[in-house]
């Protein structure tokens, strides 16, 4: 029975939840800007439309270019099996947090190689930026996991999120939340690190790497990106909110995700984008927050 529930949670999380979450972010941004905004499920409609299209491949690209979107989505889906949306994740074992981080790294690696495969100067710039920024975002994520794992005594995502037990542990959780939120914004090309809506190739980080993909490939990429955002948002929700009595694990997750979407939307509505040279400073701050959190826990 428990496995069935976990499988249902996984299916929902993998298919619909990412697009609802993005839709809520966009609705929040629209509301602050005095607009009505696109329908909540617009990104899902986009993915469905793209799946019905053909793809055009440049003659300079090789199999690596076609591998990127498929492996990228597969790795993100695999990572999704480890994330506890409801009470328990679909798959859990000691040390799966490390696998989770490296599945994201694998997705990034294939995306970057696919981008470099095109030989376009835009995609080269985007790849260089993506790799530079993620080399700072990854330590922040790993340090946060280390801190949480030490606190809970478990290196599995399913058992890592325990309520804080004292002042130090509470402070450490606050630092972990801050760090994880910055990593969430940076890894998912949200403001103030990247602008998901911009059409200006020269300023893009993540978007410019997928300019040459079209049709089903682009659908895979868009869906994978939405899923990645959801996974990180779920981790954040589990970290912030213990199960709210009366709502249960599911209700808490739904409430928390809505809150996360609104928070992301508000950040995007009230901030301008950072100058590209200042992005590393933000990420270093997130690494520092995670490191201090770990130190507090080790004390």
């Amino acid at each position, binding site marked *: 029975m428990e496995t069935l529930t976990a499988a249902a949670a996984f299916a929902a999380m993998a298919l619909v939840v990412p697009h609802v979450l993005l839709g809520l972010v966009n609705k929040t*941004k629209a509301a*602050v*800007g*005095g*607009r009505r905004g696109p329908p909540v499920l617009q990104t899902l409609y986009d993915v469905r439309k793209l799946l019905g299209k053909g793809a055009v491949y440049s003659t300079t690209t090789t199999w690596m270019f076609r591998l990127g979107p498929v492996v990228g989505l597969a790795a993100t889906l695999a990572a999704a099996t480890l994330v506890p949306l409801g009470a328990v994740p679909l798959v859990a074992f000691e040390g799966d947090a490390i696998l989770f981080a490296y599945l994201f790294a694998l997705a990034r690696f294939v995306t970057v190689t696919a981008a470099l495969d095109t030989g376009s*100067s*835009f995609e*080269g*710039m985007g790849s*260089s930026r993506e790799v530079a920024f993620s080399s700072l975002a990854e330590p922040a994520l790993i340090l946060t996991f280390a801190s949480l794992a030490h606190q809970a005594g478990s290196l599995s995502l399913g058992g890592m999120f325990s309520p804080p037990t004292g002042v130090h542990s509470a402070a450490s959780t606050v630092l972990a939340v801050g760090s994880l939120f910055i990593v969430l914004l940076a890894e998912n090309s949200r*403001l*103030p690190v990247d*602008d998901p*809506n*911009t*059409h*200006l*190739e*020269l*300023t893009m980080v993540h978007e410019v790497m997928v300019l040459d993909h079209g049709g089903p490939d682009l659908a895979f990429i868009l869906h994978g990106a939405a899923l990645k955002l959801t996974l990180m948002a779920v981790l954040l929700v589990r970290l912030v909110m213990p199960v709210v009595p009366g709502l249960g694990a599911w209700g808490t997750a739904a409430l928390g995700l809505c809150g996360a979407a609104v928070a992301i939307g508000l950040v*995007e*509505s*009230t*901030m*301008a*984008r*950072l*100058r*590209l*040279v*200042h992005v590393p400073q933000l990420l270093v701050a997130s690494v520092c927050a995670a490191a201090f959190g770990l130190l507090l826990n080790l004390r």
Partner: protein
Amino acid sequence: MSPASRFASVRNGESIEASKVPVVSAPEFRSALLRAGAAGYRLAALLGEPAPAGRGASLLAVLADDAAGKLFLVASEPVERFPSLTPDLPQAHLFERELRESCGVEPEGHPWLKPVRRDGAETAAFFREEGSEVHEVAVGPIHAGIIEPGHFRFQCHGEVVHHLEVQLGYQHRGAEALLRGGPDRRSLAVAESVCGDTAVGHAWAHCAVREALAGTLTPLRAEAVRAVALEVERVANHLGGLGAVSNDIGFLPATAYFGRMRGDSLNMLMAMSGNRYGKGLLKPGGVAFDLPPPMRAAMAETVARSSREVAEVGEMFFSEPSVLGRLEETGIVTAAVCRDLGVVGPSARASGVDRDVRQDHAHGLYRFRHIPSIKLESGDVYARTMMRWLEAKRSLEFLSVALARLPEGELAAPCGAPAPGRLAVALVEGWRGEVCHIAKTGARGTFDWYKVVDPSFHNWMALAMAMRGGEISDFPLCNKSFDLSYAGHDL
């Protein structure tokens, strides 16, 4: 000897007999221009008049003495080649490239003699850095957004731009050739289409040339309606530009608000002329439509509301730390570079170079009602953006007064055919800067030639200079802060 002693002098919107323009030898022409440049005169236009007997062309320069409010004209004897002015007078850079292309005159020793608009411009070699660590980025002419075509070639070292070359010419429609032989019934429409977002500015300059050549005295009420239209155009474009800058840095609320407010201003032009860009409002001799009291009342209400909203949204925008962090110290152009390149308009004023046709060469209603000119010093994206906000506010103040006290009188005076053998110069401060139209009539009273200089023609090089040593990711923002026209450059 004053630098102007050999020149013919005219004021903005006046014409003189073409034979009164002094014709000097080519070396004298060169030294006179260099002397004038050293004395702080600005090269408003440099053009070639094909020699009647076959090959070569005689050069004609229009120099602006902004301090004295005078324009000076000097011409050279026909030449086939001449030593380039550009090494000593960088303002002449693009004019000389254009001369070679349109008249076949060779500026010898020009540092970068490529076509400006004609075929072959895009195949000519670009300036290129060599080395294993530099890379080249080519952007355009087809862009991702809804903008005009233009090609940008960057030489980069990592994220740092060493050099940017701007290659335009994709929008060349032959506007000057269409105006040659006029004026006819389509001349005004061609002038209005030189640059779609400055339709009122170009229409005014064209009308001023026609009126100067025909000796027409424009009624004051017509001048007032023109000034109202020009300032509404300025407000619309400045607000649109502020919204676009805000969009480029991902600051969404201001994008939406400025975008809507731009619509309010465009709707005012729509009410005045039946066209959102004010096309068809002006005509030689005056204006085609009056501002009846109910329309004025409605416009005054819109102006009052816009003034409030522009102030509010602008304060919100310019007090946001992340916005300031993004805009400040990005894409700096110094006052010295502006003077060297002959930059005009808000871009020059943002770098501390106080140039404004409305103040320096006042014409029409601006002779009686002044708009105080604004000057900022820092020359970065912040200054150029702030300039547009301040100017929009000043223009709205002007509008509220001008609408309340519109002079009485006729809407238009009859504007006849141009007098033969005359030359007229008209400058108008469009929202982007100095719009310059020059025309000369032949023996039959038709245009022998007609020259248009859009402010963008002066300013594109400043964008390239602003990018030197900057981040390539700052280019779209920097480009938007200048907000130059491709069509106005390409004619």
